[in-house]
């Protein structure tokens, strides 16, 4: 297992797609719970600010969807309370909660996906299939930070030239707009240079351009791809044959635990926790490297250094001896 970032972007894309589709189609509490736990683990280890602020927003969505269902849907037999002659049923609440959890975990999954699918990975996928689109995206992605930097530069310069001299809100807004206008001119005029640079390097010479990517398709990618396809086929078969289906109305009925469904749950858990497992392994590996550095590195005490050198030497000798 290599770190998730090292896998081929196409394989990763496919993996996330299937993972999300199963979570959405299965409508199975066990699987959705698994997905939720796995995605919380993954989001906290892959995204920069962990679960962070975005999750508050996701949680609000979760609460809203959970509440919305019992308000709109009055199916189900177990009436909890009656509001304005409308019964609120346990089944509707449960269904709402499950939908909420599902949406919450899928949103988390998108977050992990966004963190992993950096622009160059996404370009690798899109670019292969649609080279022209790939180029357009690549150019835009390059221009966004460039424009941001230019905006700051213009703002600074204009500040010294007395752009915001009246120091009130209207003046500030006017100033910002003037900066935006200057930035537009700058972008358009200098864009011509970029365009010339493109034509000079043969842009438009051929009807179809290729799209190059540094990512290779390795054996480990193939292994992951095959594993993902096999287990997903297995699970999808379960979904298609209603073996994993949960009924909510009129009364909630969980699917029976059969050998098949348990295998499905285990497979799905394996799939869903894969990013987290890969991260853990990677961390352990790095921690081990740090330990080696601490003990055998140049920062260690002289005595330790000698000892480690000596140990290495004896090890080498012993290997020579074996030969």
């Amino acid at each position, binding site marked *: 297992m290599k770190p998730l970032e090292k896998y081929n972007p196409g394989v990763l894309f496919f993996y996330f797609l299937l993972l999300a589709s199963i979570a959405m189609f299965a409508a199975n509490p066990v699987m959705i719970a698994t997905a939720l736990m796995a995605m919380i683990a993954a989001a906290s280890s892959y995204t920069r600010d962990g679960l962070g602020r975005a999750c508050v927003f996701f949680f609000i969505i979760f609460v809203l969807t959970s509440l919305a269902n019992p308000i709109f849907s009055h199916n189900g037999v177990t009436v909890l309370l009656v509001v304005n002659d409308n019964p609120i049923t346990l089944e509707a609440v449960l269904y709402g909660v499950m939908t909420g959890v599902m949406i919450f975990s899928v949103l988390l999954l998108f977050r992990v996906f966004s963190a992993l699918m950096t622009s*160059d990975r996404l370009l690798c996928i899109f670019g292969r299939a649609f080279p022209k689109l790939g180029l357009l995206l690549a150019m835009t992605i390059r221009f966004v930070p460039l424009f941001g930097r230019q905006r700051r530069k213009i703002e600074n310069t*204009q500040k010294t030239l*007395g752009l915001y001299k009246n120091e009130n809100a209207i003046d500030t807004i006017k100033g910002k707009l003037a900066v935006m206008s200057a930035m537009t001119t700058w972008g358009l005029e200098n864009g011509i240079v970029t365009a*010339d640079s493109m034509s000079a390097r043969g842009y438009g010479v051929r009807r179809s351009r290729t799209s*190059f990517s540094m990512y290779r398709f390795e054996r480990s990618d193939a292994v992951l791809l095959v594993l993902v396809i096999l287990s997903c086929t297995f699970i999808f078969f379960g979904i298609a044959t209603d073996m994993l289906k949960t009924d909510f109305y009129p009364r909630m009925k969980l699917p029976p635990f059969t050998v098949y469904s348990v295998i499905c749950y285990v497979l799905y858990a394996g799939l869903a926790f894969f990013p987290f497992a890969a991260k853990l392994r990677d961390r352990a590996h790095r921690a081990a490297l740090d330990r080696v550095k601490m003990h055998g590195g140049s920062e260690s005490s002289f005595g330790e250094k000698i000892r480690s050198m000596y140990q290495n030497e004896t090890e080498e000798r012993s290997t020579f001896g074996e030969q």
Partner: protein
Amino acid sequence: MEVLRAENLNFVYPDGKQALTDISISLGEGEMMCVCGPTGSGKSTLLRLLKRELSPRGERSGSIYISGRRQEELGDREAATQVGFVMQRPDMQIVTDKVWHELAFGLENLGVGQGEIRRRVCEIAGYFGMEEWFDKSTDSLSGGQKQLLNLASVMVMQPRILILDEPVSQLDPIAASDFIATLGKLAREFGISIIAAEQRLEELVPVSDKLLAIKDGRIAAFGDTRECVERLVSDETFAPYMPAAARLFAKLADISKEFCDACGYGAAGKNASMPDSEITETGVHIKPGVEEKLCEEENPCTEGRKQKSRIPLSVGEGRRFLRDTKNIFEEEKCLTARSEGKYDSELCDARTEKTEGIRKDSKVGSAKESQNASRETALEFREVYLSYERTGKDVLRSLSLKVMKGEIFCIVGGNGAGKSTAVCAAAGLVRPYSGKIKVFGKNIRDYKGQELYRECVALLPQDVQTVFLTDDINGRHPYDLSGGEQQLAALDIVLATKPKLLLLDEPTKGLDVSLAESLCKKLKGLAAAGTTIVVVSHDVEFASAIADRCALLFNGEIVSVCESRAFFAGNYFYTTALNRLLR
């Protein structure tokens, strides 16, 4: 083998402006041609005409041959690959967001397969030493790296001709000379023919085989570099563009001619016997036979020059030439002559600096310092520490300096030394985390809101395009102006705020020699009128011409600061070509 030829090329822009008249040039395989000329002389138009994809709109007559075939007959693919083109602005030429992707861009356009692209991209990255930043995003590179990337991503298409339009004008001197060295290597090792236009030829001329000088769209000189330089160095328009060594040579030649005249031996009299006596009235002691050698070697009018008397192009050649003629010129000659105002002042200044100049200057310096003490300080940095990121490296560390009112103060230093940061801090755009900055005796933090910028401090930023807020400058669109004109227009806008303290960040970027001179005059006039000017620049020639005092910034701190002349005489690397010649 001839790779490129243009015959009787004429070009008229749609607005009726005749840009090129009767241009005929040719370039052989592996040859390097340097194109020079004032702003607006038609350099860019010519270079763009040579690359079909970039030909400007307008009326063209005459023909261009690429590898013996007419330019129009080339297929799209051939036209794209055979001729490579690198432009001025490093940033805007980059198309994609990753270094490796940028390298692959041209090959992608040609529809080359994955494996082949991978091989060629990696190969070229290895050749240009780009492994370190191969995976980086293009946004994070320095200016020099960006321009190298532009060159590499053209080279990956394996062109036979490489055209560069002012490729190093936006780079600092060290990156520029690295870039030019790379060009020379490409010409030598791969037989690529190179045409490069540039404003400053100090570095480019020594490595080029041919030189093309254009003025008002016509050829002023074309041919072997040395011959052209020899011819142009006495030309009024082109002399300032020539390398310092060549200019010095020309001056020496003039002097020697004067000597000959003074002795009664003009160019015509060179075969006459030399006098054994000393020339007492000028105080010059000339040993018998030496003057004859001098006349023969250094006088441009002399026919049948020997090999070693050829005009020097680089500092190295210049030094060798000076060494050879050292016995001829003795210090006292120069000094005496100077006292009589007979010699060119530039030459003599430089000559004397080495011996007594520093001594004298230090005296002058101390005198000035005592004078300064009585003057008001315009800008003061007191142990300023600044860093952009909380945990990042210090950009300025313990920076202390004092600029007096009415003074022109220059800060020179390499890339990333913190020059720009220093002026931004002085303009109140970035805040130090420790230390004090005082503007006219008042702490910069005590200036509230926009107070600092009301007829007090103004900054001309490195990127002058950020100055233009409107699309109309004296009836013209700012982007219709050439780089140099933009620079001057921006300065005018900045000056309109009537600053007492003017901060200039790389004011000579993209300026040609004549514009730099007019800028120099303008700034000196301002200083005389009482404006304090702080310039940070890579351009040591400009700094030496303009500054009262200079400081060398290294790694965020000032390592030396003294009176301008002593500063450049004392420096080894950060000094003018002339100083290097005469060290």
